[in-house]
């Protein structure tokens, strides 16, 4: 019998019940089952008793009683995480952080850096969510967007934010749900000439019901009729201040460029959180008048022009979008019934979706875009993740020191969940401290960030408001959970017997090499960013020193602003420092939009050709190379009939040699003939991003916009002031605007400089985090091996050998990181450059070697700072510890 009593009930059902309902809740039930089992075992075969036990357990598992107990327990919570315990965790957390100063500092620094980018992303996102939320009727305002399919060109399926102006009238008539339609035209980009100043203003032509639909605040003027009638203009408060200072602008007349006089009928309060971006609003009724005078092209009433105008709709009901979409489909089917021609389909987009929505062409104001935001958050996580893993890694590395505390807690009754909670709270303390650090970094880089997204400064003020602050706090706690999960799990699972006996082996992370993978990953990331910076810098240098095919030094481009070119030539020509003067319609090497098509009668094909109007001095002035033929002639009446083309044009058009082309007549699309007078060597008339395409010079003084002065001067300031004086004689109050050609070309590279800044910032973040992580690893690994080092020293090892031994592993990891990061960076930028610049530099050995060297210097310095110290330590000190 005594033998039989030793047979124990099966363990598995007990475990299942314990797991299902936690042990304390089912203790009495299991007790009952055990008691029955021991009774049964005296009456029947043990196997049968065990079967019965199983049966009882299963019956219990699905019983009403157990379910209720589980429910009750989840409601009340058996665990003892009440306020007193939280207080205790908090206190212990603070003490342990204070005790392990190095650990705390490393982690706070790491997490601060890691979180800073996330804060930037969050603040931007919160700001963006606010965009256009202030409109009272925001639920009913929609914008018509357009999907065009121009079958005449190869470009198809273009999504436009704009649409055809004719749609507004059609919708008002056919769609019953459309209460109001507001048209916009965003081509108002002019200079206001006021007394002796000239102020650039941008804005929209828009309908009189603008203030009815959108909730912009009119400080002065009557919203009902401010934009009623042609040549009425509403200005923002800032613009009013720029134009008139503190004087009342109402009713004043302003002269706008060549468009005529406008009367100010209102002052609008600056609205930050909107996707509209304007200094002024001009009544839409102005457009037909201007179009009639041929001063602007607005595409009014043109169903095939979907790029000039925008249409916003106000529905009488929130749910009218669907029915209106059907009307839109009907209109689109009716209007674009010729399958071979232009085709467009219309869609609706809620106003509140615009700022976060998909990217569309020709957007009206500032749109951040969904994918940009995703990328931003992805980058934030990419930086945050290593910081969090560092924390996890370091926490577990020091588990040897912490284990005894955990063991004791468990022995006196601490539950797994409680230990878990304790570490999450400890991580939260660290992460909240880090949040302060991250905020500091955030405030420091905020203005720089705003500068990179130039237009964004209006929408993104990135102020820390209540919602932003709450988002930050939430982010801090998220980080705490993220970083604390692994160590909390690890510590909560520690076996109390092992910990008290002191036989805890180093963390599980270390065993499976996750730690190494982590460090290698971090180094790869850092190396990637370092390489990015060096590659970008190289491309920047390349672009600066690139031979565009013309001379860019000492050419001063002066805006003509309507002055007579001949007058400018004779007046400026008198100055001693001005060598020669030419005129052009645009600036070489910058964006050019003027193009024309030349018709080839035989191939029945047309050649798209960019054009630039210049005078006879332009080619020698910019030192362009004329391959064959001759330049335009001074003072000949028929210069307009000739063109000078580039080599690419010959190729596109089908001439075999420059000589063949010389003297040939080519037809423009409107059948006007032009004779090729000369051929210039290909040069980069567009920024380096663009491939050289067919191009021609034409001659027509009417289109000249710039005077190109070649200057040789020993004192540039004085020359400029002389020019200024001469200009004043000619133009009176209008200010001279001039820029050196090489400066213009350099400004075109602003994108690269932004990239350098962004990658530089990311690089600094990534490198700091990796170095901090590395430092932590080295500190703890040398600490854990302190006795080994002592023994080795006693046995005769020298400091140098020991340093090498301690550093070797880390060195290996850095080498692996290089093998990972270099190919990835190489291919990534190779691909990226395809889109960013047609004329580009190669990624050379210098960048790769340089970046790698930077990484190694930083890494080795970090490692050596600790290992040298450890290797030099007196073995007596380390061994006496025993």
């Amino acid at each position, binding site marked *: 019998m005594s033998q039989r009593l030793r047979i124990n009930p099966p363990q598995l059902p007990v475990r299942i019940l314990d797991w299902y309902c936690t042990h304390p809740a089912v203790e*009495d039930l299991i*007790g*009952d089952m055990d008691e029955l089992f021991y009774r049964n075992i005296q009456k029947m075969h043990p196997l049968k008793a065990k079967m019965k036990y199983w049966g*009882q357990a299963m019956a219990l598992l699905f019983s*009403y*009683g157990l379910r209720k107990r589980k429910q009750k327990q989840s409601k009340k919570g058996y665990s003892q995480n009440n306020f007193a315990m939280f207080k205790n965790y908090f206190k212990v957390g603070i003490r342990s952080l204070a005790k392990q100063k190095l650990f705390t500092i490393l982690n706070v620094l790491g997490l601060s850096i890691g979180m800073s980018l996330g804060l930037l992303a969050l603040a931007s996102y919160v700001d963006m969510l606010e965009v256009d939320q202030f409109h009272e009727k925001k639920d009913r305002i929609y914008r018509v967007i357009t999907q065009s399919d121009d079958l005449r060109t190869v470009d198809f399926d273009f999504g436009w934010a704009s649409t055809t102006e004719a749609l507004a009238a059609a919708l008002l008539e056919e769609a019953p749900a459309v209460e109001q339609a507001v048209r916009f035209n965003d081509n108002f980009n002019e200079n206001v000439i006021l007394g002796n100043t000239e102020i650039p203003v941008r804005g929209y032509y828009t309908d009189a019901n603008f203030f009815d639909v959108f909730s912009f605040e009119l400080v002065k003027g009557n919203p009902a009729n401010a934009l009623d009638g042609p040549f009425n203009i509403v200005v923002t408060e800032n613009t009013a201040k720029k134009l008139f200072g503190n004087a009342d602008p109402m009713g004043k007349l302003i002269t706008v460029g060549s468009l005529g006089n406008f009367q100010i009928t209102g002052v609008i309060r600056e609205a930050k959180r909107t996707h509209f971006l304007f200094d002024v609003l001009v009544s839409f009724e102005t457009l037909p008048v201007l179009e009639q005078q041929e001063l602007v092209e607005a595409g009014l009433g043109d169903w095939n022009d979907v790029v000039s105008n925008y249409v916003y709709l106000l529905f009488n009901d929130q749910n009218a979008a669907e029915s209106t979409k059907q009307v839109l489909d009907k209109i689109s089917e009716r209007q674009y019934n010729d399958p071979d021609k232009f085709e467009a389909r219309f869609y609706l987009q809620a106003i509140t979706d615009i700022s976060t929505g998909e990217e569309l062409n020709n957007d009206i104001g500032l749109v951040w875009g969904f994918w940009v935001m995703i990328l931003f958050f992805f980058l934030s996580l990419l930086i945050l993740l290593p910081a969090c893993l560092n924390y996890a890694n370091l926490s577990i590395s020091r588990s040897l020191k912490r284990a005894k505390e955990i063991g004791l807690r468990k022995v006196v009754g601490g539950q797994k969940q409680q230990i878990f909670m304790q570490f999450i709270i400890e991580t939260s303390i660290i992460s909240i401290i880090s949040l302060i650090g991250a905020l500091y970094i955030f405030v420091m880089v905020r203005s720089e960030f705003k500068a990179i997204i130039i237009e964004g400064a209006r929408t993104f003020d990135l102020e820390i408001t209540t919602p932003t602050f709450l988002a930050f706090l939430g982010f801090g706690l998220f980080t705490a959970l993220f970083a604390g999960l692994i160590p909390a799990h690890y510590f909560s699972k520690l076996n109390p017997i092992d910990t008290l006996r002191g036989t805890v082996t180093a963390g599980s992370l270390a065993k499976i090499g996750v730690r190494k993978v982590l460090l290698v990953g971090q180094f790869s990331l850092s190396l990637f960013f370092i390489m990015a910076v060096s590659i970008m810098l190289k491309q920047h240098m390349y672009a600066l020193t690139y031979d565009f095919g013309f001379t860019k030094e000492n050419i001063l481009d002066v805006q003509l602003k309507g002055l007579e070119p001949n007058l400018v030539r004779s007046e400026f020509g008198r100055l001693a420092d001005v060598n020669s003067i030419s005129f052009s319609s645009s600036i070489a090497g910058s964006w050019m939009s003027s193009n024309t098509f030349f018709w080839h009668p035989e191939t029945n094909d047309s050649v798209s050709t960019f054009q630039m109007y210049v005078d006879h001095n332009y080619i020698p002035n910019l030192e362009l190379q004329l391959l064959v033929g001759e330049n335009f002639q001074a003072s000949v009446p028929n210069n307009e009939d000739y063109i000078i083309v580039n080599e690419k044009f010959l190729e596109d058009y089908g001439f075999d040699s420059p000589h063949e082309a010389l003297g040939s007549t080519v037809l423009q699309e409107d059948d006007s003939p032009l004779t090729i007078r000369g051929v210039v060597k290909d040069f980069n008339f567009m920024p380096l991003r663009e491939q050289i395409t067919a191009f021609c010079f034409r001659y027509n003084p009417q289109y000249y916009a710039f005077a190109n002065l070649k200057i040789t001067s020993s004192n540039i300031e004085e020359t400029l002031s002389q020019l200024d004086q001469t200009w004043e004689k000619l133009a009176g109050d209008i200010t001279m605007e001039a820029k050196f050609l090489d400066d213009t070309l350099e400004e075109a590279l602003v994108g690269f400089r932004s990239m350098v800044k962004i990658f530089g910032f990311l690089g600094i973040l990534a490198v700091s985090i990796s170095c901090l992580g590395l430092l932590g690893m080295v500190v703890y690994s040398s600490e854990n091996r302190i006795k080994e080092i002592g023994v080795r020293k006693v046995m005769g090892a020298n400091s140098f050998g020991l340093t090498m031994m301690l550093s070797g592993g880390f060195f290996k990891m850095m080498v692996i990181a290089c093998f990972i990061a270099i190919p990835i960076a190489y291919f990534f930028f190779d691909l990226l450059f395809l889109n960013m610049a047609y004329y580009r530099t190669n990624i050379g050995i210098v960048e790769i070697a340089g970046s790698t060297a930077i990484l190694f210097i930083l890494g080795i310095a970090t490692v050596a700072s600790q290992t040298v110290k450890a290797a030099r330590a007196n073995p007596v000190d380390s061994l006496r510890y025993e």
Partner: protein
Amino acid sequence: MKGYLGEFEELVLLTIAVLGDKAYGVALKENIEERTNRNLSIGALHSTITRLEEKGFVESWLGGATNERGGRRKRFFKVTQTGKVGLHNMKSLRDELWKNAKVELAFDKKNQA
């Protein structure tokens, strides 16, 4: 129905009363099995007790650690005042029905068997 006492519930409640301060899972199970000659699972028993607890007829507490069942504690049950009222109601309902029965319910067990 709140306060309604099912047949088995009444049985369990009365058995708890019968066992007094020794009413815990196994004792209840064996007592009921003995009296009614039917097999009970712990799950069914505890489900019923849980229902009784929810109705407020029974209260329970954990006893001290025991030796005979792996140190696991027993949960003891006691009939509450509400429980007593419930039993009384049930009994008076029965008595009334018995008293008013038109058919003679009393009979000689020995003769019938």
